[in-house]
């Protein structure tokens, strides 16, 4: 009964989405407030129903109800509890349900906390959100229904793909979807504004918290996916420019651009049309990402052709929303009024530069991702566009952008003084030069390129810190006053500095782990020892391991430094018996920010084992930097002025006195 009620709740959510997409929309066009007022309640109930449906499916997984086809295909009664739960979204149908759940969640959040929105805008935004819901709920019910039942349930399930039985992949999709789907809100705001014909600074402020939230989760989701690939796939790489990764990276680039252009729009009412376009493009790229990953088009264009129902359905959704959004944009963009003026050297100018570079980089990734697909579809030739392409195109676009990042926050609005800014950044420049000089003295000219990269990272980090130091008059005023100024500085300013600092941290990790990594691939027998820098690694022997639905072999290694035992490592090779799939579990030990990574290859009959050993300098900084960036977004999100939900727009005008001195 629970399963069927969950199924019915999903259908009801569709019916409510249809109602919520039409009635308030009609009301908004006619100016009927009664009808507009329906939007929040249908949106919230739609979320309740989808959540109930999701809970019902989860329940079926928990109790291993094999009368549900989806549970049979992706679960097993012996699977650990955690992976029974994560198995819900470890497959196509369940992950689409999660997608819709998050879509409904964002809608409900706007309905609940959007009290400061004008009624008409809110009704339109929620209607657009409901249309997206209608499209995806129909997609689920028509082609990817997780509630299909079996008359004769089999005894056991097929188990989840072992590669997916991992905590990293358990949290990766929800985070990524929070990011992808979060972009739908700025899309809905953009469409609503185009329909309403009114786009102003207030619009940008209403949209910003939602874009920030989406960006925050997208950042975490991509970082988590990268870390998962690093430790689970056993190759020691953390980014492969794989189409699936690119699919999540493109919305991130676009959302980063959107975030920055929305600031200009909010402060100066400039870049309006561009911001609207970016909002549409960002969500389009999210949809494209969903399409690329979900339609099977990536594995092979031909796989897509043999079972085209799902792919064609998503393609139609894609055309409808992207095409519809862009058509509406083309129709109405001319009617939008232009905003404030600014000089090229100004905060606005810096943000325009940021947008140009980010969109160009995004276009590069798009070409690199889609070109092989188009080529295969047209000529049947299969090529892969890999790291060399992206390093040659994406890299050069990023360098000027990264050099420019510390300048931006220093520049004044409307007209900036580049020389004064240069003076304020002297310290950061000095720090970067110092890194190069010391590095050259220690390592010689062979490391020059890596050192320049390192200098760029230092420039970013010190530059971000310099901005805060300047704003709070550190060392130029008494410490107490600096403290007072620091506390009074808006959180969004702190957020900017922290996020830019995090970018530098990530870059530092990328440069250091690429330039100074040690890689040893060798065959070892029990008793053999290899030397890694100042440490030695000895292979002790084999031990059997088993658990849940796998059994396998672990190899124990002992790491010693100067004869003393530092730690032991036990990488494993596992065989998941239900699906008969082998996996490799690397063993990773962290030393400071660096990591030792040991992974097993083939184990020979005589105990001779292929072992891959990597020493990755400062590699954890890549993901820590991403977390710092997300932290910056969270700080900015907590800014009083952006806080959503405070239903006090009317009162806000009067008590300007309550604003803390900044």
């Amino acid at each position: 009964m629970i399963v069927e009620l969950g199924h019915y709740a999903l259908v009801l959510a569709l019916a409510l989405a249809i109602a919520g997409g039409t009635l308030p929309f009609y009301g908004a066009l006619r100016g009927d407030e009664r009808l507009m007022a329906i939007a929040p309640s249908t949106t919230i109930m739609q979320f309740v129903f989808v959540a109930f449906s999701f809970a019902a499916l989860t329940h079926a997984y928990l109790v291993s109800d094999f009368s549900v086809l989806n549970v049979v295909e992706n679960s097993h009664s012996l699977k650990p509890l955690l992976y029974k739960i994560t198995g819900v979204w470890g497959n196509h149908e369940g992950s689409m349900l999660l997608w819709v759940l998050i879509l409904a969640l964002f809608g409900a959040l706007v309905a609940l906390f959007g009290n400061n929105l004008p009624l008409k805008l809110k009704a339109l935004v929620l209607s657009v959100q409901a249309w997206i819901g209608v499209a995806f709920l129909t997609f689920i019910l028509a082609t990817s229904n997780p509630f299909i039942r079996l008359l004769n349930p089999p005894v056991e399930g097929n188990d989840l793909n072992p590669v997916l039985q991992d905590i990293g992949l358990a949290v990766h999709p929800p985070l990524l979807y929070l990011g992808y789907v979060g972009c739908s809100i700025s899309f809905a705001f953009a469409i609503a504004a185009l329909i309403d014909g009114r786009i102003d600074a207030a619009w940008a402020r209403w949209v910003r918290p939602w874009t920030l939230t989406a960006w925050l989760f997208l950042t975490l989701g991509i970082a988590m996916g990268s870390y998962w690939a690093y430790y689970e796939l056993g190759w020691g790489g953390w980014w492969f420019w794989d189409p699936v990764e690119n699919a999540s990276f493109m919305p991130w680039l676009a959302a980063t651009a959107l975030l920055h252009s929305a600031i200009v729009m909010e402060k100066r009412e400039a870049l309006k049309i561009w911001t609207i376009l970016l909002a549409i493009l960002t969500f389009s790229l999210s949809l494209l990402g969903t399409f690329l990953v979900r339609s099977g088009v990536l594995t092979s264009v031909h796989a897509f052709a043999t079972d085209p129902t799902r792919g064609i359905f998503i393609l139609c959704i894609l055309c409808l929303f992207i095409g519809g959004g862009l058509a509406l944009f083309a129709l109405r963009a001319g009617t939008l009024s232009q905003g404030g003026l600014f000089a090229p050297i100004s905060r606005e100018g810096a943000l325009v530069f940021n947008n140009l570079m980010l969109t160009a980089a995004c276009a590069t990734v798009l070409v690199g991702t889609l070109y092989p697909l188009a080529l295969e579809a047209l000529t049947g030739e299969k090529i892969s566009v890999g790291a060399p392409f992206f390093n040659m195109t994406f890299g050069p676009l990023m360098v000027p952008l990264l050099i420019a990042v510390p300048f931006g926050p220093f520049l004044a609005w409307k007209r900036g003084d580049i020389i004064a800014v240069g003076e304020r950044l002297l310290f950061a420049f000095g720090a970067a030069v110092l890194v190069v000089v010391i590095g050259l003295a220690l390592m010689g000219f062979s490391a020059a390129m890596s050192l320049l990269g390192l200098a760029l990272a230092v420039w970013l980090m010190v530059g971000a810190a310099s901005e805060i130091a300047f704003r709070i008059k550190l060392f130029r005023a008494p410490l107490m006053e600096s403290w007072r100024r620091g506390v009074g500085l808006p959180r969004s300013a702190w957020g900017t500095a922290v996020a830019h600092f995090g970018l530098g941290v990530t870059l530092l990790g990328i440069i250091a782990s690429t330039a100074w990594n040690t890689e040893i691939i060798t065959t070892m027998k029990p008793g053999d020892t290899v030397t890694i820098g100042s440490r030695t690694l000895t292979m002790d022997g084999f031990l059997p391991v088993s658990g849940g639905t796998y059994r396998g072999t672990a190899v124990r290694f002992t790491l010693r430094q100067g004869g003393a035992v530092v730690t032991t490592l036990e990488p494993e090779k596992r065989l998941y018996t239900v699906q008969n799939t082998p996996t490799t579990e690397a063993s990773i030990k962290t030393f400071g920010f660096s990591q030792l990574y040991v992974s097993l290859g083939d184990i020979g009959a005589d105990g001779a084992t292929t072992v891959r050993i990597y020493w990755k300098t400062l590699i954890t900084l890549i993901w820590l930097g991403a977390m710092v960036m997300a932290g910056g977004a969270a700080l900015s999100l907590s800014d009083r002025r952006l806080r959503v939900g405070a239903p006090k727009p009317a009162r806000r005008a009067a008590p300007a006195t309550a604003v803390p001195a900044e």
Partner: protein
Amino acid sequence: MLFWIALAALTAAASLAVLVPLGRPAREHAAGSEAASIYRDQLDELARDRERGIIGPAEAEAARVEIARRLLKSDADAGKASVATRRGRVIAIGAAIIGLPLIAIGTYLAVGSPLLVDQPIASRAGQSPQDEVQDLVRRVEEHLAAEPEDGRGWEVIGPIYMRLGRFDDAARAFDNSRRLLGQTADRDALYGEALTRAHGDMVTADARAAFERALAQDPANIRARFYVAMALGQSGDKEKAIVAWNALIAAAPADAAWLPTARAQLATLQGQPVPAAPPAAAAAPGPTAADVAASASQTPEQRQQMIEGMVAGLAARLDQAPDDAEGWARLFRAYIVLGRPQDAASALSRARTALADKPALLAAVESAARENGITSN
């Protein structure tokens, strides 16, 4: 009943989501006030920026004028009155009371299975004969892990894997039996079927090759003919596929379980509406195990022997120590699951003889037999 009540309650909740806001009195509210408050806030912010030196004095003044202009414009927008029409309200009420339930129930009846109850594994344990299958599978798997070159073992476990839906394992098992026991039309066809099912009912090149080999040895092999016809359809060779299906259907016994699937395939190829097929047929497109058992010529002698071997241990133990009602029950279920009711019946007679003087045990055995639908002969 409870299910339908819950269904009605959910539907009512959905309708109320539309109806409740309609009934609420219209709020006193001035359009544009939200934007105005943001602009006032921005003026404050501008003053703070000016203080902190983020914007120059002349630029700040220009920006102040810009914001003030926006503020005035938003004030001008304010005060546009709302038009609450009767018509809009009627449409909304109609949608909530009639449209929404119609869409929901209609869609649900099309895609849902309202009559199927939940079947969590905990409530199924011990009830179903499938636990016995699981037990048998485990024992055979252990045996095969120890002696992987035992072709007969692979041959036995293959069909059971098929029934459990473990098609990849079944393909491996049939491949092994083919390799170890030698090729026959039947083994090739079974191997091909397992491959096909493992690939979501797509006849792959490997599977097709297996069926062609089977037909080369035995042109009458139903299973191979069935899947070759399917392969022809899938590869777009329409005319040949239609000929093949027609030939198959013409020669089929009227009660063959695969007939509805064959007819559906034929209808699809001919562009006709697909005749309604029972869902069970859709779940198993190929000839079922029952068909195989019915055509005795297709069932190799060895398989019979092996099945004997699998349950022989249990049967022998029970003959020596018959005081084990549960053991008998397991034996019955094993026989029934493996499609051998006659052995189950003879086991029942043996149990009756052995337990003639122990009425309590015998009653338990009798009831187990009844549960499994065994009648003595």
